[in-house]
């Protein structure tokens, strides 16, 4: 897998800023990058949540104002948020459920831009952490191109040219990438790609490391890392 600068990456990771699973995984993936020494190629997979969980919109007080979700879909969504909130709190993060299904494609384009323009991995991490944390505190409008432009700048990443990119070549790259990822079998986030193999979910982190290190010994079981408190 390569990025726009044709760097070759061993490990690619797909995320979507509006996914609670990606939110609770991103710090762990940064830790993996540091501990394993493998540079992660971050890629946006912009989920169409309405296509597999139905759509819903709430008011600020939490009352549902528009939804086509079935009781089963609601039970799956509620269980996912309950679980993600628990793990977010364990990491000291705030996770407030979004009031609507966001179009996160511009944030995804900003991720591509950030990866290609960040001078250091630290700047890229700062950008991602800032957008993730503020979005899940309901303090970042990820559909607003100007807000993402400022977020890039605040993280120390060149933002000049981003708006044009997001409305032109960046949008095109993003859309082509969505098609490629679906073809490759990536359907959710976070997903890890090593050559042609896909691992969906942060519970596979141990297996991903095991695979990167040559698949020596028995394949690990899946597990969600839990910090002792």
């Amino acid at each position, binding site marked *: 897998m390569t990025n726009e600068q044709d760097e070759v990456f061993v490990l690619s990771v797909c995320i979507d800023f509006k996914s609670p699973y990606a939110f609770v995984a991103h710090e762990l993936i940064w830790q993996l990058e540091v501990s394993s020494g493998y540079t992660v190629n971050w890629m946006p997979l912009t989920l169409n949540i309405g296509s597999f969980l139905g759509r819903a919109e709430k008011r600020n007080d939490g009352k549902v104002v528009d939804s086509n979700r079935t009781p089963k879909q609601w039970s799956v969504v509620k*269980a996912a948020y309950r679980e993600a909130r628990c793990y977010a709190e364990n990491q000291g993060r705030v996770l407030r459920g979004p009031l609507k299904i966001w179009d996160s494609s511009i944030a995804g384009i900003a991720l591509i831009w950030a990866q290609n323009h960040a001078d250091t991995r630290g700047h890229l991490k700062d950008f991602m952490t800032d957008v993730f944390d503020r979005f899940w505190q309901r303090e970042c409008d990820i559909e607003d191109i100007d807000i993402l432009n400022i977020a890039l700048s605040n993280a120390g990443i060149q933002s000049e040219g981003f708006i044009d990119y997001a409305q032109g070549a960046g949008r095109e790259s993003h859309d082509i990438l969505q098609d490629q990822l679906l073809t490759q079998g990536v359907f959710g986030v976070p997903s890890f790609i090593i050559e042609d193999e896909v691992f969906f979910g942060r519970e596979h982190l141990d297996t991903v490391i095991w695979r990167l290190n040559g698949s020596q010994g028995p*394949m690990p*079981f899946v597990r969600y890392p839990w910090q002792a408190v």
Partner: protein
Amino acid sequence: MLDYGFASLSVHMLVDLNEPESVVGIKAVAEWARDQDQAVRVWPFLREPINTAAEVPKGTPDFEAYKARRGLARRRYKDQERRRNLQRLSLNNTWKFTDAGATLVHWGLVRLAEHEMSATAVSAFVLGLVSSNKVLDTGCVQAALLEVMPVLASEMRGFDEAAAKADLAERSLALSDQGILSAPSMMYQAEVFSGIAHLPRLTALCRPQTPLGSR
């Protein structure tokens, strides 16, 4: 509500032995139970996998095309994960229960749990069965059950497949009402944990609390 005999201080695991993920889960949980000195009971949960996408109303042709492509990607991924789970079990091929064999083995799981058989013993029983390279019919399952718990011989003489199937369906429905969505899942103190990846969190939850006076 159906009384499953769930002791609140034990961890309860819900499995479908037709699925490699559940069998890997039993293996992982058995190791965890031994390391943590924790009681775990293994029960059957037999429900069709939830497919939330199937319940989404039809949309535009583009929307439907996306749903179809995502569905295909998901199925391809499930195949990859199934192969990885077989590798975790050191197996090359998946096993196959006959309908009657599947009913009997899940009926047997209920009996083993009611007899408070440890997860370690259940794991040995299940792994022996699925790695036997046989078609897992009632004869095969019966022999394995009797080997692990001879006292079941008298209960098994009166085994009624239709009644057992109905009982398993009723138990699974009751578990669904308690929030179990899929197998494998775990329950501890009425909280549901989907999948087996929550074991590190369960370790923290099950750890004996420090008495207030000693802090």
